[in-house]
């Protein structure tokens, strides 16, 4: 199986290291710059969520990122051993009800957070979450758009 496996300590300063690496790998695989940038963003959002929400910002824990290259898709799995994703969020993710819609009329009502998973849902072709053996797994799939042959 063609792919790569990263592991970082749960510190926010480590997130960019993987995000930048995945962007470069995507370009190497022939994805266009926009798609590579979108995958970089999704990795950044998912790993940040693991650190912030699963591990509550506490360093010293492990976040793993597994990128698998398949002929027709890229599969990215972000795992951690922290707190499970809240049930209502899992349900919204599965129902496809996570939207980025909002009312722009009143700036005081604009949310400062809560967009990470919504962005992932919007940019990736498939997103799923599972919890097993005390581990959270977020699986993101992007169908491949090849701009030149590998």
């Amino acid at each position: 199986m063609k792919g790569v496996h990263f592991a970082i300590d749960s510190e926010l300063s480590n997130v960019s290291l993987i995000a930048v690496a995945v962007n470069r790998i995507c370009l190497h695989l022939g994805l266009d710059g926009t798609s590579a940038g979108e995958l970089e963003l999704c990795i950044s959002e998912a790993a940040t969520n693991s650190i912030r929400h699963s591990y509550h910002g506490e360093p010293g824990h492990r976040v793993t990122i597994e990128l698998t290259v398949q002929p027709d898709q890229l599969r990215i799995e972000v795992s951690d051993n922290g707190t499970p994703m809240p049930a209502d969020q899992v349900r919204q993710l599965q129902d496809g009800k996570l939207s980025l819609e909002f009312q722009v009329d009143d700036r005081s009502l604009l949310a400062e957070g809560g967009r990470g998973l919504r962005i992932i849902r919007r940019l990736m072709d498939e997103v799923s979450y599972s919890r097993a053996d005390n581990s959270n797994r977020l699986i993101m799939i992007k169908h491949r758009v090849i701009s030149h042959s590998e």
Partner: protein
Amino acid sequence: MRFEERTIGKVFIAKVLVSRITAEVAPALKADIVEFVTQGHRTLVLDLSEVTFIDSSGLGALIGSLKSLGDDGELALSGAREMVASMFKLTRMNEVFRMYKNPEEAAVALA
């Protein structure tokens, strides 16, 4: 957070001198912009021309900064590169923030 600061008329311009606005730096960015507001600046332009990547935490910091101005202040953006501009479009924040090509254009529009 590192900025290059200047004013054009009453418009305060802060050029962000980091390339990635992520969760790592978002709290510092917001704190610094809120500090500019506290110092009395009511019309601000954040020059993002050196920024190559922004995530939702960075966006959240900008939204929090905008909210710190209340209803009568303005925080506009200039020089957004392709990735940054598409992030604003994706989240529809391009409908919330005024976005300009460069600080000079923003200063004229906001004067």
